Structure formats: structure tokens, C-alpha cells
């Protein structure tokens, strides 16, 4: 462990993450093995020091920002340690250390360039079944320099989670180092809860018995708000999306997906927001009008750009050279929906797109007001158009920051059930207008999961925006929605979760944490507020 007077100076970058919050710490360590994690943990517990676990610090909910104590940074545990191929089912798995970055995994898979020196025989043999650039890891957060460990800790997802689900759906096994240095090795399907009761056996042979909370999770397509909880759940799911509060993940086995031969994207510009939302419903298979043919395509992503988002991009495109290369937005374009489709054949996709065109016209849109990408180069153009949204927002926040350094990004991450999509949009629009704020809305509309980004021009607007978010958390909880859909609760959104779950329900979560980490040293203050327990 390294500890000295100028800690804050030397390790200042480790006191921050992408949430742009800055914390403090006393020491940091960079374990390279599971044994080193255990030894670091034991030292901390001995000194009663809080522990913050870090991956690549790309999180947006300040989960990796320390507020005192010690930092365990896993960036040096960055190896892919094995592979597994199930011939019967044709499933492919990779075993990775938590600090491996998503970009690295992608690079290895594209070029099939794994470093197999330390792999066992079985893993090397599995690789013989892998063709270059044929497999991918389907979770696709915008921040591709995220670590797999971090993604698992917050159950990250991305645009394509509409089709592929979130991290949870692709984690096959986990090794978790508990606060006392004991280890839980969890494999999917092998440790199921029964009627809200569970029993887990650690590597040292200790049995942890417990009761699951009573609260029900919201019925939404995407959720990372608090601990995963179902009476008959697979216990591995408790540790996915737990924001590092239950243990430190030391190894993950992820399942890969097979690449499909054809991948198209289409950005559709609709004449108003309501029609755009109807198109979203069409794209995800709802029957929006009579005589509607069922859409034969199954999108992997459905994304949304509000009118203001398009206007923002339009201005940037003309004035900022960094955005000069995005596609030209015509003045008649009002609101946009982006749909991405994967299939084995281009012809199949075209059939779906052709049908989509007919629906667009029926909804009052213009099928000529579309951008179709049917090859990797043009798809990349649509992707950079999509990514330009958050980039533009960040840029404008940086400008606002010059008026007051306390201003940070104000983006929501809430999701609602399918039938509440229009209602929640109406709420956002009205509240933004009522509060006289400027905001752009974009994001994963297929999952009813939109990022509302308020762009404050000064501190006063920033405060008003922040208050507004808290009222939204409350209203969305009332709609049966989730206050965090993909970023995790972390430390930033604890007040939001308090709007979603009652004090008693949060206490249930806390009891669960104490079962695994009874002195509550691991990522204290994340998910729910820290409260001193009686048993300390």
C-alpha cells in the first residue's frame, strides 16, 4: 500500500470518475491477483478503513469515487485468463479479470489475439473453435473504455440492450472476495434462492444463510436501482449490479454472442414527437394502427433524439469543426428515431426496412426523410451522430462550468414500463417548460429509458434542474418505473432510490449487505445511506 503526505496530489485522478465528482482517500493499492485483493482487504478491515473498489472509473454515478479510507484499484488485473466452448449448445465464454477493458476484449475478439501463455489446456483448445471476428460481447455502453468488472458491478447496458439485455444476461460465473477475505464462487443455475431464502457456501466451507428482502422490483425493461431481488432468484444476480457493496469481484466469466452477417441502421426523422413515439412502438412490435402488418424485423437498438437534441447538433455542426463531419440535418427534421437491426442476411433486413417505410408513411412521416446505413462505414456515421449528442452536452456543460465550477452534468437515467412512455415524455416536456430550463432528450427509447440532459446556463438553473430531477424520481417511481436504468445508483443517486423504495425496504437492503460485510466497509454510502448498525 502506498501512503504519503501528497496522496491527493499524486493520485488525484483516482479520486474522480466520469460523474465528475471528486472525493478523498488516504491510500490506494493496485492488486494484481486475487490473493493481493484478500491481503489488502484484510489490512483495511484490521484498521477499520472504508474501501472503495475501482475499475476504469468510467461510471456516471460516482460509485468509484472514494469518500475516505482506502482505494482498491483493479486496473492491473487486466488479463483474459481463459476461454470455454460448449460444443453441444455452441456457447462461447471468456474468463476475465475485473480490470480488463471492454475495448480490449473487443480488440482480442476481432483479431483473435489473446495472450494465452498462462491459459490451461482446455482454454487453448476452446480457442480452436473460435473464428476471428465472429464473436462479440454484446453489452455496449457508450463508454467503451469501461472495465468488465465495473460493468458487472453496475450491471451496465447500452444501446443494443434492447435486443441483448444488460450485463446480467451475459455473466455466467463470478468469484467474489468478501470483506473477511473469504471467497464466494458463483455459477449461474447452481445457487438458487427458494421462497426468499438462500444458502451460500464460501470456499472456506462457511455457510451464509439469509433471507431476501420483500420489495418488488419495477416492471421495466431496464433496471439498476438497488439490489436485484426475486423470491426464486439466482443468487449470482445479487452480486451483479450491487455497486461493489457486497464484495469485490475478482473474476468474471462472460458469455459471448455470435456476430450476425448483416448489420444495418436507419435514422428516421418524424414530423413531431408524438409520431416519433408511435414509430418507436411500431419498431418494438406494438400494433399501433389497424391493418398494420407486423414488422418482420427485430431491432437490436431503438434510440431517440428530441427536437432540441437535433437543434443542438445542427448548431454545433455549423459552428464547431469537431462536429462538421456528422450528417446534415435538414430544417424540416423535427424528432428522430434510430433503429439498428442485425440479421443473417441483407435481404431479410431490407424486407423489414421496406415494411418500416410503409409504416412511417402511414404514421404521417416521410420515408425519404431517413438515413439508411447498410455497411460498416455508413453505420459508423450513424453511430457518431448518436454519440455526438452526449459529446455536445458535455461541451456545453464545460462552458457553463466557466460561470460556476460547481456545475456538473445533469443527466437522468430513469426507465418506465412500456405503456408509460408517452406519459413520461409529456411529464419531461411540461416540467422543463414550466421551470424555464433548456434540456435535450435522447437515449434508449426502445427500453423507455431516456437521458434527459438539462443544460444549465448558470448556477441558479443548475439548482433548479437538480431539484426537478428529484421530483421526477418520485413521479417515475409512482409510475412503476426505475430511478436508475443503467448507470447504477452509486453514491450520486442515493436520494433518488429513497424516492423509489421506502425506509423499510432500504433497511432490508442494508441488512443484506451486513450479512456479507457486517462492518459496512465496502463502498460505504453507495446504493443507500450509511447508518451505523447496532452490532458495531
Amino acid at each position, binding site marked *: 500500500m502506498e501512503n504519503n503526505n501528497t496522496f491527493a496530489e499524486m493520485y488525484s485522478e483516482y479520486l474522480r470518475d466520469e460523474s465528475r465528482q471528486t472525493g478523498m482517500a488516504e491510500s490506494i493499492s493496485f492488486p494484481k491477483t486475487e490473493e493481493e485483493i484478500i491481503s489488502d482487504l484484510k489490512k483495511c478491515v484490521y484498521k477499520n478503513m472504508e474501501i472503495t473498489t475501482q475499475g476504469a472509473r468510467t461510471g456516471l454515478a460516482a460509485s468509484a469515487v472514494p469518500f475516505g479510507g482506502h482505494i482498491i484499484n483493479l486496473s492491473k488485473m487486466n488479463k483474459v485468463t481463459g476461454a470455454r466452448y460448449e460444443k453441444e449448445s455452441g456457447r462461447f465464454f471468456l474468463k476475465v479479470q475485473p480490470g480488463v477493458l471492454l475495448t480490449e476484449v473487443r480488440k482480442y475478439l476481432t483479431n483473435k*489475439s489473446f495472450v494465452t501463455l498462462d491459459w490451461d489446456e482446455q482454454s487453448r483448445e476452446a480457442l480452436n473453435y473460435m473464428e476471428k471476428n465472429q464473436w462479440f460481447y454484446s453489452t455496449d455502453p457508450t463508454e467503451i473504455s469501461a472495465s468488465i468488472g465495473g460493468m458487472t458491478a453496475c450491471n451496465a447496458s447500452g444501446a443494443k440492450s434492447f435486443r441483448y439485455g444488460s450485463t446480467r444476461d451475459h455473466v455466467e460465473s463470478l468469484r467474489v472476495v468478501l470483506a473477511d477475505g473469504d471467497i464466494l464462487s458463483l455459477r449461474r443455475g447452481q445457487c438458487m434462492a427458494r421462497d426468499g431464502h438462500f444458502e451460500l457456501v464460501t470456499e472456506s466451507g462457511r455457510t451464509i444463510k439469509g433471507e431476501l428482502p420483500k420489495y418488488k422490483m419495477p416492471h421495466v425493461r431496464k433496471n439498476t436501482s438497488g439490489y436485484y431481488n426475486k423470491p426464486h432468484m439466482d443468487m449470482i444476480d445479487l452480486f451483479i449490479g450491487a455497486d461493489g457493496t457486497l464484495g469485490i469481484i475478482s473474476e468474471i466469466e462472460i458469455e459471448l454472442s455470435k456476430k450476425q452477417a448483416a448489420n444495418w441502421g436507419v435514422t428516421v426523422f418524424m414530423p413531431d414527437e408524438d409520431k416519433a413515439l408511435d414509430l418507436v412502438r411500431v419498431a418494438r412490435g406494438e400494433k399501433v394502427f389497424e391493418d398494420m402488418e407486423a414488422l418482420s424485423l427485430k431491432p437490436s437498438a431503438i434510440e431517440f433524439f428530441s427536437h432540441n437534441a437535433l437543434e443542438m447538433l445542427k448548431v454545433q455542426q455549423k459552428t464547431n*469543426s*469537431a*462536429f*462538421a*463531419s456528422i450528417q446534415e440535418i435538414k430544417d424540416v427534421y423535427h424528432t428522430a428515431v434510430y433503429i439498428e437491426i442485425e440479421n443473417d442476411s441483407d435481404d431479410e433486413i431490407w424486407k423489414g426496412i421496406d415494411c418500416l417505410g410503409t409504416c412511417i408513411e402511414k404514421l404521417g412521416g416521410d420515408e425519404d426523410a431517413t438515413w439508411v446505413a447498410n455497411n460498416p462505414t455508413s453505420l459508423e456515421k450513424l453511430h457518431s451522430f448518436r454519440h455526438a449528442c452526449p459529446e455536445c452536452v458535455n461541451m456545453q456543460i464545460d462552458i457553463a462550468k466557466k460561470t460556476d465550477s460547481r456545475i456538473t452534468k445533469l443527466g437522468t437515467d430513469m426507465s418506465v414500463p412500456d405503456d408509460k412512455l408517452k406519459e413520461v415524455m409529456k411529464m419531461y416536456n411540461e416540467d422543463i417548460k414550466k421551470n424555464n430550463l433548456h434540456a435535450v432528450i435522447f437515449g434508449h427509447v426502445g427500453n423507455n429509458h431516456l437521458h434527459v440532459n438539462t443544460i444549465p446556463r448558470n448556477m441558479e438553473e443548475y439548482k433548479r434542474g437538480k431539484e426537478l430531477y428529484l421530483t421526477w424520481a418520485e413521479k417515475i417511481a409512482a409510475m412503476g418505473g426505475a430511478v436508475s436504468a443503467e448507470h447504477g445508483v452509486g453514491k450520486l443517486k442515493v436520494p433518488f432510490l429513497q424516492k423509489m423504495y421506502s425506509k423499510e425496504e432500504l433497511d432490508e437492503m442494508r441488512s443484506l449487505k451486513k450479512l456479507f460485510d457486517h462492518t459496512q466497509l465496502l463502498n460505504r454510502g453507495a446504493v443507500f445511506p450509511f447508518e451505523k448498525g447496532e452490532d458495531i
Partner: protein
Amino acid sequence: MANISIIKEKCVGCKKCVGACPFGAIDIKDKKADINEKCTLCGSCADSCKFHAINFVRDEIVQKDLSSYRGIWVFAEQRYGKLKTVSFELFAKARDLSERLEVPVTAVLLGNNIKNLAQELCAYGADEVLVMEAEWLDDFNDHVYGEVMIQLINEYKPEIVLIGATSNGRSLAPHISSTLRTGLTADCTVLEADKGERLLLQTRPAFGGNLMATIVCPNNRPQMATVRPKVFKPLVPDYTKTGKITILPVPSPIESFVKKIRNIDNEEGANLSDADIIVSVGRGIGSEKNIQLAQELADSLGGALGSSRPVVDQGWMPYSQQVGQTGKTVAPKIYIACGISGAIQHLAGLADIETIVAINIDPDAPIFKVANYCIVGDVREILPLLTKEIREAKK
């Protein structure tokens, strides 16, 4: 008509020709090679076949008498009475060729009030200078200059014409070659002469530099080639050297359908092509604002800032600073590649460089294969430290 075919009896299906074909035009069917429609009749496969199983027949061409064509010409491009440096570079190469072919090197100098430049051309290697001065030749015009060149070539019959691949040269050369219906090879990087056949062997990058092709023009004259600036090194000028300077009679003015209204010149800045030290940034720099880190290093070293194509495509740097196949060819003493992976297209823009330094986070980046000094690391961390070291040392 020219034809290429597989002699099935001789073909053993060894696939050597498949690998030799740059166009993917050979498949193996029934264990024999089979040439498909993608074939461009380049003949690469015929050369590669050890079993003489590929029959490549070129058309019978009536051998023309080309013996009246002698001598090497260099188009001496000037602007505002100042010669372009690429002309000097071409003379150095032309001298090489002339010694081999035993013919003189002639400079062709067109413009207005430019005859004083003729002496300089001799100093750089011209044996003769043909000068034509006229008011209507004052400013470069593809059509006007092209027509004058054609008239002169028809009259003097040079066997080789070299033109600098500047923006003007690249536009002028095809005008001349297609009117004369002769061959033209663009952006040559190697020029050699075959004395026996009196052929100019013109080597240029193909497929973005992944492959080099040597091209000849056997039956037409003159043999024309363009060469990009900085590919060859000029000779040290010898101002004591004299040459034969001929002031040509001026024909009646040539009209052009293209009229220049005005020139809008770039401001004179640090010119990439002339810099001794270039700090060049690639995608690894991460963001537009990090380019400042490279700029600071360039400033501390008194060098210029260059970039790879992705950075220009992103709009982070202007096209004028792009190094590579579709950008500029550069030949500084020191080239520092920061976060540049080193795709072959980029390497194609690096001419004769004494020292290449590569800083890249990816140990497998191809740039390391050509670099003299390599640092595997994050440019964003190393650049500020390096700048600091240089500044302190220079204090």
C-alpha cells in the same frame, strides 16, 4: 486481343498464382486455377507460376521507331518567379538517369520574366534550359501550359518527361500524356533506367502502399512520370556550372476555357514539407484538446505539427497538415509519431527520414516496425513530460 488462360494439363493446383494476384481474380476449381472476371491482365500470375501453366499473350504491337526520341526533360515549375523545390529534386534524379542513358538533362521553364531562373536550374543539374517567356504565360494554366508543352515535345522529342506531383503538376501531366497518347505514371518513388531497352522503370505504390509496382512504357514516347515533393533529394547546387540556355520563340497566345479569377494563398506558416522536425499526431491522442500537447512539444523543438488521416477526418487538424498517401510526403530529419498506429498509407508519406520516433500504447502497432526509437506508452502522459525535459534542457 490480349488473353490470359490456364493450361489445365500443366496446372498442379499449387495456388501460388492465387497469392500472386493482386486483384483476387484467381479461384481454384477442381484443383486447377481458374481466372475470373476480376482479372486486369496484369500478368503477375504468369510470372509466379513455376509450371508455366499460365499462358499470357499480349497483343502484337507494331514496333514503332522510337529512336528519334532522346533526352530527359524536367518541367521546372515556378510560381511568382520562384522555383518549386520539387523541380530541384527532379534534377538530381534526372542526372542519375542521364548518366545511365548518356543523354542530356533539359529543363523547360515557362512563365513571364523568369529567364533569370535558368542559371539556377543549371546549378541544380540541368545541362540545357528551354525558356519561354510571355505575358500570357505569367500564371499557371493547365490548358495553356499543356498545349505549349505538347508543341515543344513534338518538336524536340524527349524520351522522358518528369513532372513534380504538385497540385499543378498532377493536373498538367495527364493533359500532355493523353493528348500525346503516351503513358504516364503518377507518384513514382523509384525511377531507374534500363539502357538496353531505353526504358524508364517507374516504381510506385499500389493498394495504398501495400504493394509496389514497377511500370514501363515500352511503345510510346515520351515516357512520363510524376514524382511527389520530398521523395528525392536535390543536389548541392554548383553555381559555377553553366548550361545551354535557349530562349524560345513565343507562339501566338493560347486561349483557355478555364480562367483564373484570383489566387487566395494560404498564409505563410510553418510548412510541413520543409520542416526539419515534425511532431505528428494520430488517433491515440484521444481528443482535439490534447493536440495542444503535441503542439507544445513541436514548439519546444522548433518543429512543425503533422497528423495522420483519422485526425484530419475527425476535423481536429486541417488537411494541409496530413501526412501520408492522401496527404503530404515529408522528409524531416526527425519524425515523432504520437499515437499513430502506422497504417501503410501513413508510412507512404514518410520519405527519407533519418530518425523516426514512435510513441504508442499498442505494442503491436505497425509504426514500431519502422521506428528507430520506440516507446510503448500513453502519448498523453509522455508528451507533457517530454516537453518539460526538452524545455529544461534548452534553458
